[in-house]
């Protein structure tokens, strides 16, 4: 194994990668991009490539590709389309390998259809030929893979992922690969992630405490060990605004899906402002690093995923001959407009529709603290509707207290109960207003844990349940239970001191005891009567229609 990356001399990377002895588990079942193989070779000792070397590598690859390229491609979109399934496929099938920085690593949850990579416009021509080569190699390696199919046995090791736009030239089964953060109990995936993060100089956060077996596939972090304590993160790798944001997320200072998305967008505006494009590179190459870091601090939410997708799309839409200053200001404007349209104006539209549903004499039940629901209630109160509110709260977050504070400040008469009393007060209630973290493609509502319980009891009492959700939180994921994908919060939050005694203080010493602090749960559409969005009032089963209309628009 050469100590120096001898990539310059790699004329047949396709054959070379097969010969390298790095790890017996290498399966190039998917044609990894040729670019990758060269770097693969270079990384045999796990050495870091300096930026110049990376750049040089890329240039080499581009030249090689150009010489093999014939076809014209129509738009950079298509090549990105090709790249998306390709690049996300490759990490899945090569456990010990690390995708290169430009390709978004598998850690970025593909639950939200984030494009796997956004190689910039200049890479168009090489990208297309890469796809061609990949197609050939795939056909070759398909046979290989079939024989080794049983060996893996992991769900994650599958063929090209089921992105909305499948590779056109392929007839392979389109199956989504599982994102890393729901495969925590799979040591292979963890090893892969660790190596990838190490290469990007992002610290890997370790799990804390005994995990309940049903949820052992999820991460469980402790708030007392924030990511930044472990290592100092050089600012060349992660922008300080992102570091600050990550800390705010992990410590719970910024909480709530709208708040997190807005904070993310503002932080990215800062990053864009401070970014200076190195020659022959673009902003999109560094983005995956930032997202990985944020993901380590706290898993990205569906709304954040959609926002990120939008940013990446806007970045890729900038023509390559655009001057840096102009491009930057354009991007900043796009982000501002996104926040304005999708969050602020949407809230106004939703409030306008909801006021029709609030009549005088209503008793409205709300759960936890949803910024949108609070906004609606305050607006309705301004318009002189006479109603009173029952705020239901639950441990350990006790977010209802914040909602209570905001509503009482406006002068709305409120009652405060804990969730254990919900079946007691429901006979008094005329409507239930719930916020949502995300709306899934099969009509399920993902929201704070406890929401589905409230919806269930409300249904039993025949009380209408209304969910208020902006369209940017609609996601193409499908989930029917709260187990497959969720978030585990710090288990120490469940420890409480009463009358000077802390019963669960030494819970770690009891081997059979696990503390479970779930963050989200899913509510089936049968329990939800109406969803109020900025597009109007729709039944819960019409979410895929909205997604379809949105896709057509884009």
């Amino acid at each position, binding site marked *: 194994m050469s100590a120096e990356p001898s990539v310059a001399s790699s004329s047949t990377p396709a054959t070379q990668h097969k010969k390298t002895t790095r790890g017996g588990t290498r399966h190039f079942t998917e044609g990894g991009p040729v670019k990758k193989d060269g770097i693969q070779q270079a990384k045999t000792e796990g050495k870091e490539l300096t930026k110049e070397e990376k750049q040089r590598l890329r240039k080499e690859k581009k030249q090689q590709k150009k010489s093999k390229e014939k076809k014209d491609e129509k738009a950079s979109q298509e090549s990105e389309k090709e790249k998306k399934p390709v690049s996300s496929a490759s990490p899945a099938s090569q456990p010990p390998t690390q995708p290169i920085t430009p390709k978004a690593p598998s850690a970025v949850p593909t639950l939200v259809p984030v494009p796997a990579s956004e190689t910039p416009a200049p890479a168009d021509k090489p990208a297309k030929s890469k796809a061609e080569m990949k197609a050939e190699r795939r056909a070759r390696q398909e046979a290989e893979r079939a024989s080794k199919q049983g060996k893996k046995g992991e769900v994650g090791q599958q063929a090209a992922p089921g992105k909305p736009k499948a590779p056109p030239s392929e007839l392979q089964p389109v199956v989504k690969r599982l994102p890393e953060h729901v495969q925590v109990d799979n040591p292979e995936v963890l090893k892969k992630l660790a190596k990838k993060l190490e290469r990007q100089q992002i610290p890997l956060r370790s799990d804390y405490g005994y995990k309940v077996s049903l949820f052992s596939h999820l991460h469980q972090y402790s708030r007392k060990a924030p990511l930044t304590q472990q290592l100092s993160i050089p600012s060349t790798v992660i922008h300080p605004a992102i570091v600050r944001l990550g800390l705010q997320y992990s410590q719970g200072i910024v909480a709530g899906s709208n708040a997190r998305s807005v904070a993310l967008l503002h932080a990215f505006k800062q990053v864009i402002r401070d970014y200076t494009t190195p020659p022959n590179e673009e902003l999109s190459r560094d983005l995956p690093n930032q997202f990985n870091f944020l993901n380590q601090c706290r898993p990205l939410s569906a709304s954040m995923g959609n926002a990120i997708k939008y940013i990446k799309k806007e970045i890729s839409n900038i023509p390559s001959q655009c001057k840096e200053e102009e491009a930057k200001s354009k991007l900043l404007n796009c982000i501002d407009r996104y926040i304005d349209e999708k969050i602020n104006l949407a809230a106004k539209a939703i409030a306008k529709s909801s006021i029709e549903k609030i009549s005088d004499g209503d008793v409205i039940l709300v759960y936890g603290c949803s910024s949108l629901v609070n906004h609606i209630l305050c607006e309705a109160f301004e318009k002189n509707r006479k109603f009173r509110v029952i705020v239901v709260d639950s441990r350990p977050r006790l977010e209802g207290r914040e909602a209570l504070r905001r509503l009482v400040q406006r002068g709305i008469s409120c009652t405060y109960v804990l969730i254990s009393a919900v079946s007691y007060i429901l006979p008094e209630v005329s409507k239930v207003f719930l916020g949502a973290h995300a709306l899934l493609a099969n009509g399920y509502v993902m929201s704070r844990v406890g929401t589905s319980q409230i919806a269930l009891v409300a249904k039993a009492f025949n009380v209408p349940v209304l969910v208020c959700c902006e369209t940017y939180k609609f996601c193409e994921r499908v989930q029917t239970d709260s187990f497959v994908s969720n978030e585990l919060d710090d288990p120490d939050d469940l420890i409480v001191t009463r009358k000077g005694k802390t019963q669960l203080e030494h819970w770690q010493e009891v081997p059979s005891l696990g503390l479970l602090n779930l963050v989200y749960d899913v509510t089936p559409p049968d329990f939800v009567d109406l969803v109020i969005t900025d597009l109007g009032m729709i*039944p819960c089963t019409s979410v895929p229609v909205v997604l379809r209309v949105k896709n057509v628009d884009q």
Partner: protein
Amino acid sequence: IKKDHLVEYFRAQMMKDPDMASAVAAIRTLLEFLKRDKGETILGLRESLTWATDCLTGVDSSVAVSSGGELFLRFISLTSLEHQDLSRCKKVMEERGELFLEKISMSRTKVAKLCHTFIKDGAKILTHSYSRVVLRVMEKAAAEKKRFSVYVTESQPDSAGRQMAEALRKLNVPVTVVLDAAVGYVLEKVDLVIVGAEGVVESGGIINKIGTYQMALCSKAHNKPFYVVAESFKFVRLYPLNQQDVPDKFKYKADTLKTVQNLSEEHPMIDYTPPSLITLLFTDLGVLTPSAVSDELIKLYL
């Protein structure tokens, strides 16, 4: 064109063809209004059409009239109105209006064609009050030489069920009139329930003569299929959460709304049946499940 002329024309249309849906009469009136209108701008035209629809709703407060009017307006404006000459634009709109009218006159036939196959030979059907669409479906089924018998509820307070029974007897279909209170009693004998609708709402539920909700609940309890037949111009942009949420202007007859002071003493003429109780909806757009109605509405209105 004055309000009185409008109302007169509308009433004349209704009397001319009692078999026609009131919404169709309303649309004919609106088309006539459009032809006679002397507006100068397209926006003015739209506004006057909306005003005309409101007038007609004042005469006949059924949901279908308001939904039909709105759909008419949307349909005729759904074309490129970029012509320089206003009269040419108006002509285009009039042509579209005639096309719309033609389409909806065919809608009952389309519905009947779709639905009659669900009536099997020897079936016992339960229906509610007097619905011309249901009548047309049964005509078609009888024409296909199917033997079936029908139970009709009396449907107080206007005994419209008896009118339905008369019409069915003319088709030589064996029919029995039952009390509204006897729905639960009769349901074990029937195979399926077919009702019409005055309006189909966004959630996929329907607004129909009072007593429909009860019938739907009983059929759900008995696990009998509950079918609704409705034309597509009855799709309306309402989303009631429960009975209380239906606007008052639809619940009572137009005359009642104008004359009576205290509405809480009046009995509502319609009720709302939620989508969970409905098995299928037969419309001229096809056979839909209640969740597909929202999809169709989005296509119609957006």
